[in-house]
């Protein structure tokens, strides 16, 4: 095993897949060296493998994704990068009306081996247009797979799988995770979609969290443990397909659920999990399912305000305690 950063995991996965398969290529804004991407997730790829494999584009997200789609339909396996998840708003028609639907609309003719990578999330005082968590929108789109890893190990294994799949994958990274470290096998590996990872075992309350919120949930679990509360932390890793079984099994054991999702609460991803679990494990629940999400406002610039709007470790602790009837 090697200890590497999340950023390196993303870089390595891409470079290894480019080396393995000549039809894989990267496309997006400012990906080439020496810049190597806004968050340096493509650094040392064009320098090693050449500019033919790493395409810098104009600032035209709808067309970046649309062009990646066209290439994927005609024999290539593009990995498109949107610098910020926020900019998917400029690419929604391509992502939703085209990428996600072309196979269906054509009666299964199309194969769409396409990965769209984007970096999202708050925590850097980047204000309202550079810190959104939009996974709920993407999960609402039939035809996409959605991956959202929280560790270098998961990131590398899932990204490699994504690049090898024949269906389109929206792959979400978190800007605050890039510098986090973790162990990764030295040898080649991939990870399956649709399989959750239990990041911590526990018996009193289940915490389902994604992306950076997994780290917050683990921190909350540590603190809850000091208080005698044993929290199980589940990271679904892919939201579509979702490992419902893992979540339900845990809830049937703990009888309590907190869902943590960085996106805005209203119509966010946590609502889906709450709706699904109350239906499938109704009689197992000893307390209402708690959602811990961003408040229903845009992200403010000022750091304290931003922290207040984003979910915090304390929010998770409070929610978990609430499910235990402790306030």
């Amino acid at each position, binding site marked *: 095993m090697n200890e590497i950063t999340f950023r390196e995991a993303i870089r390595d996965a891409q470079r290894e897949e480019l080396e393995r398969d000549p*039809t894989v*290529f990267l496309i997006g804004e400012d990906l080439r060296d020496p810049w190597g991407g806004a968050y340096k997730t493509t650094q040392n790829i064009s320098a090693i493998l050449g500019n*033919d494999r790493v*395409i810098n*584009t*104009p600032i*035209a997200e*709808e*067309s970046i*994704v*649309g*062009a*990646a*789609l*066209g*290439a*994927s*339909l*005609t*024999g*290539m396996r*593009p990995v498109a990068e949107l610098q910020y998840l926020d900019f998917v708003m400029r690419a929604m*028609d*391509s992502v939703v*009306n*085209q990428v996600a639907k*072309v*196979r*269906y*609309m*054509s*009666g*299964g*003719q*199309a*194969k*769409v081996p396409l990965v769209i990578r984007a970096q999202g999330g708050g925590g850097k005082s980047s204000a309202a247009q550079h810190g959104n968590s939009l996974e709920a929108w993407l999960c609402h789109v*039939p*035809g996409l*797979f959605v991956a959202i890893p929280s560790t270098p190990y998961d990131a590398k294994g899932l990204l490699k799988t994504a690049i090898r*799949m*024949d*269906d389109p994958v929206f792959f979400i990274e978190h800007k605050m995770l890039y510098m986090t470290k973790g162990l990764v096998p030295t040898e080649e590996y991939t990870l399956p*979609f*649709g399989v959750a990872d239990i990041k911590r075992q526990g018996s009193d309350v289940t915490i389902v969290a994604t992306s950076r919120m997994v780290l917050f949930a683990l921190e909350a679990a540590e603190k809850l443990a000091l208080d005698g509360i044993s929290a199980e932390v589940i990271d679904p890793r892919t939201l*579509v*397909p*979702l490992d419902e079984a893992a979540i339900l099994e845990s809830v049937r054991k703990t009888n309590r659920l907190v869902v943590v999702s960085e996106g805005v609460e209203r119509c966010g991803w946590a609502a889906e999990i709450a709706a699904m679990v109350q239906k499938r494990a109704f009689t197992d629940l000893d307390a209402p399912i708690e959602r811990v999400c961003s408040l229903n406002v845009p992200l403010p610039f000022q750091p304290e305000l931003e922290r207040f709007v984003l979910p915090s470790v304390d929010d998770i602790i409070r929610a978990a305690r609430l499910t235990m009837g402790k306030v």
Partner: protein
Amino acid sequence: MENGSLWMELFRLMVRVRHFEQTAFELYTAGKLPGFLHLSIGQEATSVGACAALRPDDYMASTHRGHGDTIAKGVSVQAAMTELFGGASGACHAKGGSMHIADFSRGILGANGIIAAGVPITVGAALSIKQRRTDQVALCFFGDGATGCGPLHEGMNMAMLWKLPMIFVRQNNHYAESTPRHEYQGIPDVVRWAEGYGMPAVKVDGNDVLAVYEAVSRAAVRARRGEGPSFIDSETYRWYGHNIGDPGTWRPKEEVETWKARDPIARFRRVIIEHNVAAGADLDAVDAEEAQRMKQAAVQAENEPKPPVAAALEDLYSDPVLGAQAIQGVRC
């Protein structure tokens, strides 16, 4: 006549498109077809002239008004007709309908319900041609109304930037729905504007199938030589309204009549006869054959079985296991 067989093929394809759409019109009017229907009758020379200049392995993306384009590029008429009926053996298994006819085996990347959405897809196909180092080309059709649409601009810039083997064909039928040029276009001359991107741009008589064929052929040669994209503004007209619900009576009657008098099929028929490529009777025979073929296609299409409703859960993901997990089966 050296080009005799080409001319006959062009004629046949135009007639085929015309009959297909006339048949679709009648079927729709008789209440037999669901959904939307955008007829391109009057525009056959543009669809056929352009696609005939392409090879089977070249790519083409079309629009909401895509019957002519897709038939010209080779989609099976039977499959297309069955698709309009929503038959299980339709070109898109009844998932797509009129606005989404596609045939990837013939380079048809799809008609498209979204204005100008075919442009970035074609850019990507052209990029992939370059990456795979083949000598294919990629052509995208779009309407005159697409001119003000951002993705068209983005695609033209990218095509020039990367010197892509791409052909932009503007099917200029003078209206976007009912909106005339002076209400959607501030650009005074589309050809000058396209030249601003650095690519050769020409206006062609879009009702002259040979003119369209030649313009696209030149563009294709350029593209295959690695000299980059071209832009063609093909001036034509649709006889019918915007869609089947629209009688199109908001246009000046004389305008419609003038353009009907320029019928691309009748016109090419005269040219063929003048040049002694074929006699009127030969052309009548082609017409009768295609009419007959379309009648049969309609009958067969109507009798094709509809898909079982559970087919709605198929064709979304190519991975069956993960796909099923993602779709999660039926409600309750």
